[in-house]
């Protein structure tokens, strides 16, 4: 593990930020607690995705599979009488197992096939949840015990729980960023063959990263399930969210410690804004945001420098790739 001053500062900043977040729970009213909870949830998912999608560079579109598996594992455990916190742990375990089972076959694939395989897992799981009535309650849904307490207490409890999980995801990311494991993942992103040449057990690293992502995603899902107290397949396995998460990370900066946070926060703020003002147009405007992110922030907010911005503004015409560029970089 390599710790330099910049890294120590980053960690200190992150810890401070989370401490402030926790402190805010005392003053925020319930709606903002709810927004904060959603934000923490999305950031946790973003950090989780960032390990596979950012550091390792694999286009995994199965974040919601992990989330949904966790939600159902936790929900089923809770409905069977297991306590809330134990149910969350069980869900994390189930998430790990599921990630292993899904990862071993899929991580042998590359590029589009990997992306398609992961996205198909969402569809299949949703149908399984829909049809396996004895276990999941099917389309009629699954009722969980409602967390007791006044709205304020409940709101604060779930806010802090999600924030805690996001903090955990943040710490894991920081660890990944500075250890041999993270170095290996970056090598895999650059060139898998070269990575195996320098003695990295590529497949083990890939599965390891996938499982880590799975555990975090499933835990997030389990907390979410306890919070809403009612699960439906179409809600737990939501196809749009499985693409939104990568967009958020892209917005912030892939393969960085703070990228998921910046991406998650700015995306949620943009979404809230659009949603308040453009009741009939928001899905189109969200599409516009996605398109804009890809054009103007291809390496995320964190990758921006002043020079890039000037370059973009000054020479927007020359960004169109020349024929030779296309030929060079796609073959």
């Amino acid at each position, binding site marked *: 593990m390599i710790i330099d001053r910049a890294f120590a500062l980053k960690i200190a900043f992150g810890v401070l930020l989370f401490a402030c977040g926790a402190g805010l729970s005392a003053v925020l009213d319930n709606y903002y607690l709810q927004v904060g909870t959603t934000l923490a949830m999305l950031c946790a998912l973003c950090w989780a995705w960032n390990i596979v999608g950012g550091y390792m560079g694999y*286009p995994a579109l199965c974040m919601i599979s992990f989330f949904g598996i966790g939600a159902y594992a936790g929900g089923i455990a809770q409905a069977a009488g297991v306590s809330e916190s134990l149910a969350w742990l069980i869900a994390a375990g189930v998430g790990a197992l599921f990630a292993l089972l899904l990862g071993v076959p*899929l991580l042998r*694939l590359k590029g589009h096939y990997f992306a398609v*395989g992961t996205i198909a897992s969402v569809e299949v799981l949703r*149908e*399984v949840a829909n049809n396996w009535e004895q276990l999941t309650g099917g389309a009629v849904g699954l009722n969980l015990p409602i967390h007791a307490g006044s709205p304020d207490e409940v709101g604060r409890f779930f806010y802090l729980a999600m924030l805690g999980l996001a903090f955990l995801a943040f710490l894991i990311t920081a660890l990944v960023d500075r250890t041999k494991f993270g170095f290996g993942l970056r090598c895999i992103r650059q060139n898998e063959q070269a990575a195996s040449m320098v003695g990295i057990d590529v497949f083990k690293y890939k599965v390891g990263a996938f499982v880590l992502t799975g555990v975090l995603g499933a835990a997030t899902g389990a907390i979410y399930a306890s919070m809403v107290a009612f699960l439906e397949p179409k809600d737990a396995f939501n196809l749009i969210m499985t693409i939104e998460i990568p967009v958020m990370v892209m917005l912030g900066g892939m393969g960085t410690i703070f990228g998921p946070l910046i991406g998650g926060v700015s995306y949620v703020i943009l979404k809230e804004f659009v949603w308040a003002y453009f009741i009939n147009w928001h899905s189109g405007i969200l*599409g516009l945001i996605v398109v804009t992110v890809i*054009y103007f922030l291809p390496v995320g907010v964190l990758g921006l420098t002043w020079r890039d911005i000037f370059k973009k503004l000054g020479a927007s015409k020359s960004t169109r790739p020349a024929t030779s560029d*296309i030929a060079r970089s796609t073959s």
Partner: protein
Amino acid sequence: MISQYIVNGLLTGGLYACLAVGFSLVWGVLNVVNMLHGSMVVLGAYFCLYGVQQLGLPLYAVAPVACVILFVFGYAIQRGLLNRVITQPILITLTLTFGLDLIVNNLIIHVFSATPQSLVTNFGTIEFAGVRVPVVRVGGMLVAVVLTLVLYWLLRHSKIGRAIIAVRMDRHAAALMGIRIPHIYALTFGIGAFMAGAAGCAMALIYPVTPMMSGVFLGKAFVICVLGGLGSVPGAIIGGLVLGVVEGLGTLTLGQQWATSVGFIMMMAVIVLFPTGIMGKKGYE
């Protein structure tokens, strides 16, 4: 009875093939997973509905116009937007088309509303040895298959078609041969959109169309494309027919509730077992 299931499957499969061929071509040649494809199909269907119901024109006049409009639309999207990021990792192009899909779908809801609409025709059915075949479906399927075959022929025999195949085989070499790659890319995407429009017109005859169907169409296109091999036109036809029949047999054995998952499960199995498609190596059209 089993013959009725197979005929049902083949009729549906023919439509599926038409649905997937444009998607497959774009994926194979451009290396872009076009999440916008489903909405382009729906758009084609709505153009046909608009022409026939609001303008009172006959379908055979409206359908080609709808397809051409979509061709122009596709060409413009690729030339203006996608070409600029085509060298980026697939996650970028995939999310970009996803964003475009959100925009187009929202526009469709606004312009055409979300109420189901369709062209109501009654051409009757043919009965043969206890198997019933609705004429409109045969027609839809025939048009779809004929168009697909025409596309296949054009790719092999026209100059532009050869250029597209050349780009698909080796972009590097194709560029050195003086092929204008951005133009070829845009043409390919345009052809994909044209085929989506054609599929949409066939759909308008058979299905009550809603903007929300785009997701279902896209899902089918994914499965067929993987089954038949990326970018392969005959592969799309075979993949479509296979999917149609498999869904039918899935209904028979597992029950209707599993019928749509069968396709996705099959796709995941194919991806894992044959990472280059059932046909083995990339086919050259």
